Each structure stands twice: as C-alpha cells, then as structure tokens.
C-alpha cells in the first residue's frame, strides 16, 4: 500500500521552504514531488543569465512571482569586460511579460537594462512591487518615468551603483498623486536634481517608507524637512553636506534627527563638512550600519562619530580613518561584523594617510564578531596576517587589496604565502577570499589544502606556474566562482581540471597564458560549458594556436552557446569550429 499526502498538503508543506537548495533537493525525491514543487516555486535566482534561457525557466516554473538575475562577471566592475559584451535583460523581460503576468519582483545585477525594458516592465505586470537594479546600465531617467507613472503598487525602487543616463530629475514627478505604496527608494546614483516639492509630497503620502537614499543633489539644508515627514525611516542616505555650516541649518538637522527613533542605517555624506556630523549624535546609539565611504573627513572627526555608535555592526569608511581611528573603532564597537576600508587616493604611489596593516590587526583583535573584511592598504606583513587569522577564525569574507601589485612582506621582503596560508588554515568557514601582494604557488597549495568552504576566489598578479591553478581547482571543493587576472596560469591546469569547471558557476581568466588551442580543446571536450574567448585583436584563428587569448570566460550552461555575442567574443564549440554571433 502506498500512502501519500494529497498534492495540496505537499504544496502547503513546500511553501515553507524558502531556500533554493531545499527546493532543489525536494524536486529530486520523485517525479510527483518534482511536479508539485515546480508549480509552487515562486522565487527563482539565476546566478548567470547565460546559464539558462528564459524559455527553460518559464517551462519549468510557470508560476513565478520574483526573479533575481545576474549578468556580467564580477571583474566588469573594474572595466575588464569590454563594452557591448552582453547581459541584456530585454529577452528575459519580454518572455516573462508573456508568461508571468503576476510577476511582482525583478532584481538584476550587472545587466544591461534599456528604457524599452523598463517600459515593458511597467506595462506588463499589474501587481509589480519591487525593482532593484544593482550595478546595471543602459537606461535613462526616461525609463524611470515609465516605472514611476505606471507601477501603481510599487514598493521598492533601488538603483544602487547603476550607471544611469541622467536626462533630468523630472522622472520623480511621474509618481501619481494617489501613489502611496512606496517602502524603499534608492536614487543615490543619480546626478540630476529632482523637484524638491515633488519629493516632499511623495514622502509625505507614503507612510510605509522605510528606506530613503537621496542623491548628491539634495543639499543638507533640505534634509530636515524630509526627515520630519518621515520619522519612521529605518535607512537614510543624505545628499551632499557641503553647505557652509549655519546655526539654523544645524539646529534644524539636530531636531529632525532626534525625531527619527527607528533609524538604523546611515549613508551619503558627500563632501560633508565635519561640523554637521554631531547633528546625528542622537541616533548613533541605534545605528547598526554606517556608510562613510564618500566622506572625506579626517580621523578625529570620524572617531567622534563612531565612538557614539556602540551597536555598530557594519562600517564602510575611507582610509582617512587611519590606524588610530581603527583602534578607536575596535574599542567602541564590539558588535562589529563587517568592515570595509576604501582608498582615498588609490593612484598615488606614496601613502597619503597613516593607515597600515596595524589598523586591521587591531580591529581583528578587538572585535570578536568580525566576519567580513574588505581592506585597501599599502603595506602588509605575514606576521600581521597570521595575527589576524589567529584573532579571527570566524572570518567568512576576507578581501585584501595591497595597492602595489606584487608587494612583498614589507618587513621581511618575502612573499605573503604564509600569511594568507594562515588565513585559510584558521578561518575554516571562509567563503570568499581576494589575494594581493607577492604570492608564489605555495599560497595556492595552502588554499587547496585548507579552504574547503571557499566559494569565491579572486586573484591578481599572483603565482608562478600552472601548479598554482591546479592546487586551487583540485583542492577547493566548494569553489563556485574563480576570477583571475595577470597570473602565469596556462593550459595544463585548465585542461587537467576541466571537469571541475562543470561544478562551478564560472571561471574568468584575463591576461594569463591560456592558449587558443587549449580553449578549443576545452570547448570540444566539455559540451556543458560555454568556453568563450574574448579578444579584441580580431579572430583567434588569425593567430597561431599557441598564442594566449586576451580573456577567457568559462561557465556551465544548459542554454547552449550565446546567440547575442558581440564581434569580439567567440564560443569554442563541440565540433571545433568557431561560431560567430
């Protein structure tokens, strides 16, 4: 006798599963579970827009309400991916417009979004609620006007770090007068001034507004008026705070902030005159996230502010904080989990601030919950790295950028192999790692041996030979994303570990020594991978096979070769022939 629950009961149970991993596991149990699960999956995450096609997604999951799609490889953030490479969202929007009329959420990262796409979104989904465009490009403020005008139930509009062609600030005025559903607005990347009165009215009529990141064009003297209309805000980003300090502006600001009893996160502060910072002291004790990475304020003023934020969990700051400021941070902010220190002057050869490895060591010693680090500095030592590793075995993300490529341990002039080796050895839960400085194959041996939970690794100017790459590919069991630039890694390691690439999302290699011949071979042998050569010198066929390709992007896919390649991308195909788009 076979006992089984009716479909409705199973569906009800599956509804409690939110993680993709769990749902994927459920669909593998048996055919009927696969069927039930696919009809009730509401959220889909696509880590690589070319790994699957919209048609495949729609065919399997017909009732989706929320999609999240990522496009270009991470190194696109640093201009390593040429213009017109791809990651166009339009085909996705167009397919979903036909098949998902009830779609509510679209979240995109590093994709090319056109005004046409935005207009299609605004007209196709009657219950559309959330639009998040993170590090996207290709659209103008006209596209935003369509969204504002047509999405009657919009809750979130988040444009973080996108490149928008800013035609005017008029888009904001397109929100209708009876539009009241806004919960979150992030317009910090936009340049143009929006109509201030339209902004005031919008904020006044949206009682559920929790997140508001203004853009630089909103001057500090106007902030008080906005905050008074939205005392329920949880996250707030100012505009530029450079207006010469005046008593009335300052006292208005103090009063407005003191009315915000729920503020947890602050950002903005472009060009901030330090005298404004005390206006925020009343909210500091509740602040858990502080983004001061646009504030060119010196260490003493930063410390004044930070010393009030005893509940701080996340700090983004420029290296003006210096070692002294980090020492203060480590003594005042015992709950700190994430620290990012950005360089104020990345292109100058000499240090302009007194920030060294010592600052990071101090924070690692003083902040027991520290798990996520991004740190730009100009000197590092193995001793410091070992100390950090011993202090903080609970690190999950560790990204270190020593500004000078291949800089050795400044004390011993040795490579930093043992330092990073200590990091991977002690930090057993490490999921993300970025290396810099002088590194030999040895560090990769350590990584391959110890970094068993590592999911993402970023390398630059590191290693001596293919052995380095081989250690990583053969040893890092959890590796999903590997991005490499300017390392002497070539054909051998790649071909010897070809099967590994099918277990990963993607591999990026630029300015390495992978030959065109090896790329062709990889493409031939691995039908489930797209092996894409990016080369702006012209067809790889016109050069000897042993010549290294400029850039290589390899990713697993069920969608076959791309149909939208530009003229500088070639897919290495099964039959060994080149395909042009």
């Amino acid at each position, binding site marked *: 006798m076979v006992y089984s629950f009716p479909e409705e009961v199973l569906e009800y149970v599956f509804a409690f599963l939110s993680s993709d991993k769990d749902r994927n596991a459920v669909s593998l149990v048996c055919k009927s579970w696969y069927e039930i699960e696919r009809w009730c999956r509401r959220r889909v995450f696509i880590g690589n827009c070319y790994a699957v096609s919209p048609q495949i997604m729609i065919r399997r999951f017909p009732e989706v309400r929320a999609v999240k799609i990522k496009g270009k490889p991470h190194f696109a953030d*640093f201009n390593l991916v040429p213009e017109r490479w791809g990651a166009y969202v339009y085909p996705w929007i167009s397919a979903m417009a036909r098949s998902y009329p009830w779609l509510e959420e679209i979240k995109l990262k590093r994709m090319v979004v056109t005004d046409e796409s935005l207009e299609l979104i605004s007209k196709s989904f009657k219950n559309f609620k959330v639009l998040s465009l993170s590090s996207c490009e290709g659209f103008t403020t006209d596209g935003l006007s369509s969204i504002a005008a047509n999405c009657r139930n919009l809750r979130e509009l988040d444009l973080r770090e996108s490149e928008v062609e800013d035609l005017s600030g008029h888009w904001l005025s397109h929100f209708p007068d009876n539009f009241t559903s806004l919960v979150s607005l992030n317009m910090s990347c936009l340049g143009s001034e929006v109509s201030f009165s339209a902004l005031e009215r919008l904020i006044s009529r949206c009682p559920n507004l929790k997140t508001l990141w203004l853009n630089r064009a909103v001057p500090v003297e106007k902030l008080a008026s906005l905050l008074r209309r939205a005392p329920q805000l949880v996250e707030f980003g100012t505009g530029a705070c*450079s207006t010469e300090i005046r008593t009335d502006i300052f006292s208005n600001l103090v009063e407005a902030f003191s009315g915000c009893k729920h503020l947890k996160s602050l950002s903005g502060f472009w060009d901030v005159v330090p005298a404004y910072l005390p206006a925020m002291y009343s909210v500091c004790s509740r602040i858990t996230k502080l983004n001061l990475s646009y504030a060119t304020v010196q260490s003493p003023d930063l410390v004044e502010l930070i010393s009030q934020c005893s509940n701080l969990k996340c700090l983004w700051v420029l290296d003006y904080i210096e070692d002294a400021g980090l020492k203060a941070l480590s003594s005042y902010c015992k709950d700190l989990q994430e620290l990012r220190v950005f360089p104020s002057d990345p292109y100058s050869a000499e240090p302009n601030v007194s920030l060294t490895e010592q600052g990071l060591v101090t924070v690692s010693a003083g902040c027991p919950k520290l798990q996520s680090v991004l740190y730009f500095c100009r000197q590092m030592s193995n001793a410091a790295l070992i100390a950090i590793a011993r202090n903080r075995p609970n690190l999950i993300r560790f990204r270190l950028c020593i500004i*000078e490529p*291949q800089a050795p341990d400044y004390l011993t002039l040795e490579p930093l192999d043992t330092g990073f080796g200590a990091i991977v050895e002690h930090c057993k839960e490490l999921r993300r790692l970025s290396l810099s400085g002088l590194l030999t194959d040895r560090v990769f041996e350590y990584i391959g041996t110890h970094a068993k939970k590592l999911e993402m690794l970023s390398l*630059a100017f590191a290693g*001596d030979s293919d052995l380095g790459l081989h250690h990583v590919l053969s040893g890092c069991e959890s590796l999903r994303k590997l991005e490499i630039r*300017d390392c002497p890694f070539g054909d*051998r390691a790649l071909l010897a*570990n070809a099967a590994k690439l099918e277990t990963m999302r993607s591999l990026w290699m630029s300015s390495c020594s992978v030959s065109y011949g090896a790329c062709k071979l990889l493409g031939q042998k691995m039908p489930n991978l797209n092996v894409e050569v990016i080369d702006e010198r012209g067809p790889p066929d016109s050069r000897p096979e042993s010549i290294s390709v400029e850039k290589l992007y390899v990713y697993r896919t069920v969608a076959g070769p791309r149909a939208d390649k530009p003229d500088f991308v070639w897919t290495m195909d099964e039959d060994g022939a080149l395909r042009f788009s």
Partner: protein
Amino acid sequence: MTMISEEHKKEKLGFEETELRLGLPGGGGIFNEDLVKNTNANGKRWYTETVDLKLNFALKETEKGENLQKEKSLISCSNDSVKPPPKAQVVGWPPVRSFRKNIMAVQKSSSEEGGGGAATFVKVSTDGAPYLRKVDLNMYKSYQDLYCALGKLFTMGKCDSQGMMDFMNESTLMDLLNGSDFVPTYEDKDGDWMLVGDVPWKMFVGSCKRLRIMKGTEAIGLAPRAMEKCKNRS
C-alpha cells in the same frame, strides 16, 4: 605516466597539451612536484610584460635604463629593479569601482579650507629643473603666501617672491613676458593651462590640479585665455 617525463624533456607549452588526458576533479595525478615551471612565468616579469602591452611601451627602452618621464603616468624602470613600475596605470587596478573614483576625484579638486578637506597636494614643475616638487595649497591663504613658498622651493635668481608678486599686476606681467622671466601657470579641473592669479584664491585652490613655472616666452599665449575663462566663470 611516461607522457609526463616526455613533456619534461620538451619543456614547453604547445601542442603536446592536446595529448593530455582530461583529469577528474580532485584527482589527476598528472601533476607532481617535478613539474617544470613555465619559463616565461616569473611573476614579476610577467607583470611588467602585461603593463608593457597595455601602455605600448617597448620593454627594451626601459631596460636601457632611460627614464621616460610622462606627465600623466610615470614609469621608472631599471634593470635591477625588483619591483614593477610603481606608478603605471594598469587597467582595473587597484580594483576600485568607477563611481568611487569619480567621487574622490571631484572631492579632491574641490576641497575647501572649511576645516574638513584633505591636504591639497599639487605637483610643481619648473622648466629647467630636473625634479618636481609638491606643495599643499591648503597651507597658504593667498597668492602672496604661495609665491613666497615657491620662491623658497626654486631658486631662480630674479624670480624671488617679490618678482612673482608683480605678476598680479597685468601690465607688469606683459612686460615680464616679453622678457625671459618665469611665469607661474596651473592646470585646472578642465585640463586647461591657466595663468596663476586671475581668480579668487579659494577658487584657485579648488580648481588647481598642478603648477608649472614656465619660461616667460612660452607663457605669452596664456594671458588672453585666462581673461576669457574668468568671464565665463562669473
């Protein structure tokens, strides 16, 4: 496994790669400790070759020991130098997002003395002097202060602080320009070379990116443009 020792004998990458079996993850056994290193894989040299390609500098030129001085990107390379060219601008390095670069560039050039900004160091070059200097414009409150400081940095005979102050007077400037005296000029935010002294001091500090003390005969063309620009600004 005999394949491997043959490879070792050949000691090169190339077509023998096609003879390799494709290994399974975590296993392989193709690699062992005797693996021959890439001959051209000295990490440091690799980097300089990459930089080389991107910036179209012939490696040979630098190995001759010539110091190629360029205004924007300085490359000082010597044969014995272990470090790669320190000031070369490599694409995408350091890994800073463009919106962060722009923000900092704007903030740097518009730093005011309102108590918060970082020091505004600008390079000062003088025609004929082999080394550049740097001055922090925030240390001075007026053109007079700046001229005194520049006068101390560069000893140029007639061009002492008093001589430079004369430039603030237009007619004297023209007299001196007809001669062969030195003229202070600066590059502004837009990349234009301007005559020092036309605009209010604060505005100058906010827009000056670098200073150049030119020989008078070269600076003749600047004066009319400086006037025009001042009009456009106001």
